[in-house]
């Protein structure tokens, strides 16, 4: 019976992927026709690969907490604080060690925020929505008090390499993003920690009684989320050559939107890196396409909302029909 259930489970996940691929296909065709193929030029694709990683990494960071049925609202604040930490080191040291030190310090800062979130969520069992809402405000406040609301800009060329250079024509940030996605996919699918993440989201009590250390798994989920936000923060700093306490606030709810569009169940337990990757590409291709067409980025925002609503609607219609057939 178990193998049957397994096939059925993969079957439903596949229908989500199929739906997403259809969406993506329609969009690519539509935008190619409208832009007369300009979206498929090497230059447009390269621009797309430069723009995608920041949102992409933040969405990957949102994925793990959402799989456990939680959420991380502090992602953007964490990314900004990591960038600011890196910037502080870059502006105060000048030796060869400044760049690696800045990157490490940025990541460590983000991991520390993750540990804090994870400790409060797993130790005191405060709902993740409230904890991370509090951390979002707290971390943004810390970042604001460090920068006094100003922009810190102008970093050495060795640091800008991360966000602005290409390797064999492929932008560096895109390579980093792919590496992170691959890492996350392997982590979630192949390791005990990854499987416990899914289990936490499907049934917390059953997971506890099956001998999984739920507290440490939850803690690690938020550390993972924090560290990916840290990577995003460092890349943002390098790509924009500037850091600020409240960059990219609009990205926060978009990460949740992208995860749900990618087939992640907001209640936890279901969702794959591959689905989320397609969702990110859908979002970025509309944004880049709209820019090429000279349309407002805000119209792309509206379209993202409509895409999410229609994907929810279609899924709902399919599941209602499925239930009726049974």
């Amino acid at each position, binding site marked *: 019976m178990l193998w049957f259930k397994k096939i059925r489970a993969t079957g439903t996940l596949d229908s989500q992927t199929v739906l997403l691929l259809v969406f993506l296909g329609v969009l690519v065709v539509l935008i190619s026709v409208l832009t007369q193929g300009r979206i498929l030029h090497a230059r447009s694709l390269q621009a797309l690969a430069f723009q995608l990683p920041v949102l992409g990494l933040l969405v990957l960071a949102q994925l793990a907490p959402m799989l456990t049925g939680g959420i991380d*609202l502090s992602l953007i604040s964490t990314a900004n604080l990591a960038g600011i930490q890196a910037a502080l080191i870059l502006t105060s040291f000048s030796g060869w060690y400044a760049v690696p030190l800045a990157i490490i310090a940025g990541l460590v800062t983000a991991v520390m925020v993750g540990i804090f979130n994870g400790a*409060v969520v797993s130790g*005191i*069992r*405060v*709902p993740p*929505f*409230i*904890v991370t*809402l*509090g*951390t*979002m*405000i*707290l*971390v*943004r*406040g*810390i970042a*604001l*008090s460090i920068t*006094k*609301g100003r922009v810190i800009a102008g970093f050495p060329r060795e640091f800008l390499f991360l966000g602005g250079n290409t390797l064999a024509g492929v932008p560096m940030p895109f390579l980093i993003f792919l590496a992170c996605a691959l890492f996350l996919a392997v982590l979630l699918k192949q390791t005990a920690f990854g499987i416990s993440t899914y289990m936490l989201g499907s049934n*917390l*009590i059953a997971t*506890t009684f099956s001998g999984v250390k*739920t507290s440490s798994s939850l803690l690690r989920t938020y550390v993972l989320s924090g560290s990916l936000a840290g990577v995003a923060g460092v890349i943002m700093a390098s790509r924009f050559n500037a850091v600020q306490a409240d960059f990219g*606030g*609009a990205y*926060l*709810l*978009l990460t*949740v*939107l992208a995860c*749900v569009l990618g087939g992640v169940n*907001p*209640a936890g337990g279901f969702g794959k890196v591959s689905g989320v990757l397609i969702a990110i590409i859908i979002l970025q291709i509309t944004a880049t396409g709209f820019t090429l067409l000279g349309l*407002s980025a*805000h*119209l*792309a*925002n*509206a*379209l*993202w*909302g*409509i895409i*999410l*609503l229609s994907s*929810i*609607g279609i899924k*709902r219609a399919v599941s209602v029909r499925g239930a009726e057939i049974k």
Partner: protein
Amino acid sequence: MLSNLRLKKLFRHTELYLLVVLILLSALISFLNPRFLCSENLFDLLRVSAFIGILALGQLIILISGGIDVSFTAVAAVAQYIMGFVIVQHHIDSIVVAILLPIAIGSVLGLFNAFLVYYTKVHSVIVTIATLNVFHGMLVFLSGGRWIHNLPVTFRNFSRIKLVELVNERGVSYGLSVLVGFWILTALLTWFILRYCAIGRKVYAVGGNPEAARRAGINILRVQLFVFTSMGALAGLASFVQAQLAQIIQPNAIVGRELDILAAAILGGASVYGGSGSVFGVILGVLLVSVIRNSLILLRIPAYWHQVVIGLIVIGAASLMAYQRKMRDRRASGSVVV
């Protein structure tokens, strides 16, 4: 023993904690800077809080029903912009239209949210993230991001109306703004509906246990329609108040603050799991946020720190409540706690 028990029962209420914190904080600040307690400062504090206060009341109703709405800032922005556009374009010099029009627009958008949440059966936070993008994206696209200045005369003069008028020692008159009156009226109305009307009790029932409420014969769709339309209407009213305070209408002024306003409602004891929360608590939550901001200004501490303080308070308060619940569960179940 008995008195101890009664005291414990009393102190379980979030409102009392908040009130104690608020009083202690106010005492401390007025000790450091006596200007805090003068009525001029307090009136100003209330005036500035009215906008967030009204929005937090709407959010309270949604939170009690077990939902979360993050699209209300976009709803407010849309309602405000259309109102401004209509009264400037058609030279409608009427304050009644300026108040009722955004409320009507907000209600319609709220209705739209309600139907989506009910029929998709997806958690309202997800649905409203989508509608937030749709509403705001369309607004900025269609308006081209243009600001609306030169609002009509009555609109400009309305914000100067005072409910109570006093004169300070320098001979300058000041008073309690009429905008605070909107907040007080909405609070009374919300309190009355939630406490004494059938629909208000149903909101608590649905939030406490939706399945039990459905089996008891409560029409869930009607409750959803009520909560989201109320939020929309209050977002419309709040957008009027914000336009009065700013005297300029910008499509980007309100959106982006949704989570900070949500935090004020949660600070007031509204549960994100639904079923609990009170008007009094949410008012105290909003006041606490405003008092902290105001006191930092009076104490000449850089304003950036106020977010650090509020973040810490949100985490601390939530941790305290969760810890108490954990202890209670442990006592109740005896041994295993998940």
